[in-house]
Every structure is written in structure tokens, then in C-alpha cells.
């Protein structure tokens, strides 16, 4: 990384002192179920304060310590869904390692400490009328609330859901329930690679007037959409991941380089992101 990168953009925090907008809370677990062999859906009760959140934002979860797992740092998780009426928020996560392994031990009635809502969510610009969602793996969780948002804005929605195998396409039905037209592709079926998807996306642009991309979950798909978007002048956004410590913007752990007017700049995924402009990602 060139030493000339300026570390963080010249932006000051946007909340005046005395009005906390990020909360640390103990939330009772309402439900916690296996969605398939790898993913679990965790639903917690949450007060109104933290439900002022947006698709694309995330929470930082304090995973419990168990005899087997001893996670230390928090783990970032996208909001999978939130319901202000029911006072609940849910996370869809893949059991990957120490932290999520420990998270998986939570039972209904247990308490989960969460910090959030954090980061900048998706922005559906007014000129974007026909969005295409392209999600893979964990990205299916992150894009789910965006699909709901599109539905509530009355936007017609097409979603390409990609996964290793058909049983890991867990939120395709949820996308459908929001009225999305869902195209599923999997490695197993051999139709999830770039060569298969690029023509499909090009076709959707031609035939369905796609004018915005939203993606999450795959560097490969991101590169493909950047390339197609640049060629067709189609904008969009991507939700990124990076190892985090604080999640709030204090530690500078989670930076990634982005293209800005004056060259490259390191931005914090937890603060300026996790949602970024598609074309700015380096």
C-alpha cells in the first residue's frame, strides 16, 4: 500500500455530543435456529433506539465464551431484518470459527450484548429505478433488508443469488416474498462463474432495463459488476468486509483503499462503509 495514502477522510463525526446514536445493549435471544447446515438465524429483542437502522448497517456482537470457544473481539454482523413493531432484529450468520462457533451456543432466553447500529447503509438514489441485487454466500444476509426496502419503495427487483450449493441459498425465498424475481446459481450447477453470469447480467440490462447494481459477498462478482457497470454507465453500491476491532471508527483496523478524486484513500469499512460506491473500490 503506497505510503502516500491518507488514512481517513477529512470527515468529522456527525452526531453532536450528548446525543448518543450508537448503543451498547443486552438483548434477550428470542429465537435461534439452523437455516441449513452452515447458517443460523438469530433473532433478538431490541429497543426502539437501535431499530432506527438501515439496510446495509451492521451490529457488533459480543460472542459468549464457552468451554470450547474463547472469542475476544466482537464480531460484525449485518442486519438481516429488523421489525420496529415487534421490537426485534435478526442476524443470519455462517458458523465459521471461534466467534460464530460461540454465538451458535446461545439459547432462547440467553442475553446477547450488541453494539450498533453501525456504519453507513445502502442508499437507493432516486434515479435508480430498476436495481439488480447480486448476492453470494454471506452477502445474501446483507442484501435481504435492501430487498425489503426496494419492495417498500415499490421498485421492481431482480436478485441473483449465488452459493456453493443449492441448500446454501437460504434467503432466496425471503427475496421472493418481497416480490423479487430471483435467479439462483450455484457452483454445483456450474452456472455461478463469471463467464456464465456476465452474459446474464448483460441480458438483464438489455431486456429489463437494469440501472443499478447492489452486491455483497464476492470479490469476483464485484469486479465483474465494476467492469460491466463502467461500460454501461451503471452505478451501484457494494457492502464490504474487513477484519475489525472497534467497529466504531476509533482503531483504524478496518481500512481498505478507495479511489477518490485526489487519488487513493484509505477508508474505514466500519465507518465510511460497509457500503461503498461500486466504482470507488480498488
Amino acid at each position, binding site marked *: *500500500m*503506497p*505510503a*502516500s*495514502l*491518507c*488514512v*481517513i477522510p*477529512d470527515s*468529522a*463525526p456527525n*452526531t453532536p*455530543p*450528548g446525543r*448518543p*446514536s*450508537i*448503543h*451498547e445493549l443486552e438483548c434477550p435471544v428470542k429465537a435461534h435456529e439452523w437455516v441449513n447446515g452452515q447458517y443460523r438465524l438469530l433473532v433478538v429483542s431490541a429497543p426502539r433506539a437501535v431499530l432506527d437502522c438501515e439496510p446495509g448497517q451492521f451490529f457488533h456482537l*459480543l460472542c459468549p465464551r464457552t468451554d470450547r470457544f*474463547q*472469542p*475476544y*473481539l*466482537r464480531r460484525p454482523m449485518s442486519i438481516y431484518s429488523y421489525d420496529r413493531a415487534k421490537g426485534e432484529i435478526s442476524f443470519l450468520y455462517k458458523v465459521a470459527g*471461534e466467534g460464530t462457533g460461540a454465538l451458535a451456543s446461545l439459547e432462547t432466553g440467553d442475553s446477547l*450484548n450488541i*453494539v450498533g447500529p453501525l456504519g453507513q447503509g445502502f442508499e437507493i438514489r432516486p434515479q435508480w429505478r430498476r436495481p439488480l441485487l447480486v448476492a453470494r454466500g454471506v452477502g445474501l444476509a446483507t442484501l435481504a433488508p435492501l430487498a425489503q426496502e426496494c419492495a417498500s419503495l415499490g421498485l421492481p427487483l431482480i436478485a441473483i443469488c449465488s452459493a456453493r450449493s443449492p441448500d446454501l441459498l437460504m434467503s432466496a425465498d425471503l427475496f421472493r416474498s418481497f416480490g423479487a424475481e430471483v435467479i439462483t446459481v450455484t457452483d454445483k450447477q456450474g452456472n455461478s462463474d463469471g463467464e456464465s453470469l456476465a452474459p446474464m447480467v448483460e441480458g438483464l440490462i438489455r431486456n429489463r432495463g437494469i440501472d443499478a447494481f447492489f452486491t455483497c459477498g464476492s470479490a469476483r462478482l464485484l469486479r465483474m459488476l465494476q467492469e460491466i457497470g463502467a461500460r454501461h454507465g451503471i452505478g451501484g453500491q457494494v457492502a464490504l468486509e*474487513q*477484519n*475489525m*476491532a*472497534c*467497529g*466504531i*471508527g*476509533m*482503531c*483504524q*483496523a*478496518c*481500512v*481498505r483503499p478507495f479511489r477518490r478524486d485526489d487519488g487513493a484513500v*484509505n477508508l474505514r469499512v466500519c*465507518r465510511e462503509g460497509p457500503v461503498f460506491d461500486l466504482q470507488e473500490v480498488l
Partner: protein
Amino acid sequence: MADLTTRIGTLTLKNPIMPASGTFSEELAEVFDLNCLGAHVTKTITRGKRAGNPVPRVCEINGAMLNSIGIPSKGAQWFLQNTVPFYSDYDAPLVVSISANTADEFARFAEEVSVPGVAAIEVNISCPNIEDDGKAFAMKPGATADVIRRMRSATDLPLWAKLSPNTGEVVEVAQAAEVAGADALVTANTMLAMAIDSTTGRVRLGNVMGGLSGPALKPITLRMTYQCARAVSIPVIGCGGIATIDDVLEYLIAGARAVQVGTATFISPTTMPRLVRELDLKLAERGLAAVNALIGTVDVADEAIAIAEYA
């Protein structure tokens, strides 16, 4: 309400709880009212802009954290134009942590940040990332004295020397800082460490080595705090692995006049206000009227080393 004030040289802090450099920033104002803290300590800044180290910049290991953030910095100008005004809304004193490559640069930079709104300078002579193999000014009494002495003549602000646990000469370095004119010591920065992914064989930090922080560091930095508090007469500010009120008490008992909370704020961003509250309760519980009554009360007497009672 007990008297939580503590004096660090000419500064009186309303309580002994403050953040550790690099684990605190303006953004925390979105979690709680920063006015509840004894002081505000900035991330270390350098005079010019710096990008910091390659990612991954952090990893966790056995209930501790490693970081090789480096010193990404937006430079002196940004600090003066944005950071100082931001914190001027608060009455807690602002402490700016600075780093430089030579004693001379340290002095010139100290002069530059000696502006209204800045209450003290923390001299980061201990960042193990900035120089090769963890070498830093705070590794040697001579280099430490040199930096502090030049800064002393360049600014009237209190100078807090932040020491390193990586040196084998903790006491000598502490005394050198005192003699050269430091107003307080901070014990300590992170310990140079490393992690490898046993599956891939890769180092787990972009910068190969990084600094250990969190609970695993506490027994080491508590020891340094005790050693330094006995060896110097300037105030010592404890730092390393503080997360609970018991940790705070242990540092105070060991001789610290205040403490800095680092990694714990990442684990629980409300740690510091909670510690302020709990400190008040603990003092009351023990019938102590002031935090001062705890400082340096460590009991190393024979009772402690007698045969363990078993009744």
C-alpha cells in the same frame, strides 16, 4: 460521592479514568458523553500525513489482541484545525499523543501542538510498530532522556512519557525520563508479539509483528507500574489490560495515580463511564473518601508471604 479527583503534576483530573492512545476518537461521543472522562487522549499523530501499516492490522489470540495499525496520521494541520476544536467543547483536558523520528523532530512537533486547548503532551516513544524489530526510544534510558530533554525546552505543556514493556531497563528508562523533565509516565504501551496461522503458515498481521494488548498484558504492565511508581516521584499512569473495576483498583494500589483504558473499549465501548461509576461505588463500599486513599497502598509485607492459611 467520593472524591475521585487525581493530580497528574499541575493537572487535576476529575477522575482517574481516561482512554489509551489509539483506542479512542471523536466517534466515541456517539456512544456516551465524553465529559465523564478524566482526560481525553488522542491517537498518536505525526507531523506529516502517514498511511499506517498494511492489513490485516489486527487479530485476536487467546483472549488478547494483536495490532499493527502503525501510526496512520492526518498530520499536524488537521489536528490543529479539527481535533482541538472538537474537544474544546468538553472540559476534560485534551492530551495529544505525538510521535516523531528524531529527538529534534519531537521537540519541534511539541512546539507546534502547544496551543490553547491542549493540556498535555503524551510522548509516544514506545510504539513497537514504528521502528524495526520493536526498537523505539523508550528501549534505552539515553534515547529517552534525549527526547524528553529537547521537548522540555520546546514546550511548557506537561509531558507524559509513554514507556514500553519491551525494554529490559524499565526502571532506568523511567528514571531517565523523570530526570530529563517528564511530568508523568504512562506504563505502558503494547508488547511486541506475533501470530501465525497454523493452517496456512501465514503471519496473521500485515506487518508481521505487532503489539499485544488486552487482559494478557495486564500482569506485565501492572508489574511495570509498580516498579516505576517505586522508582520515580512523578505520577505514574497505569495502562494495560484494564477492563474491570478490579483492574483499576489493582493499578491504583500498585501506585498509579490514574489509568488508561485501551482495548477494553473495543470489547465494550461503554467501559470507561462504567468504570467511573463503579470506582465511586467501590470507594463508598470500602468507606474511603477519596481515590487518593488507595494509591500506592500495595501490601508486600510478610503477611502476604506467610504460609497460606487453610481454615
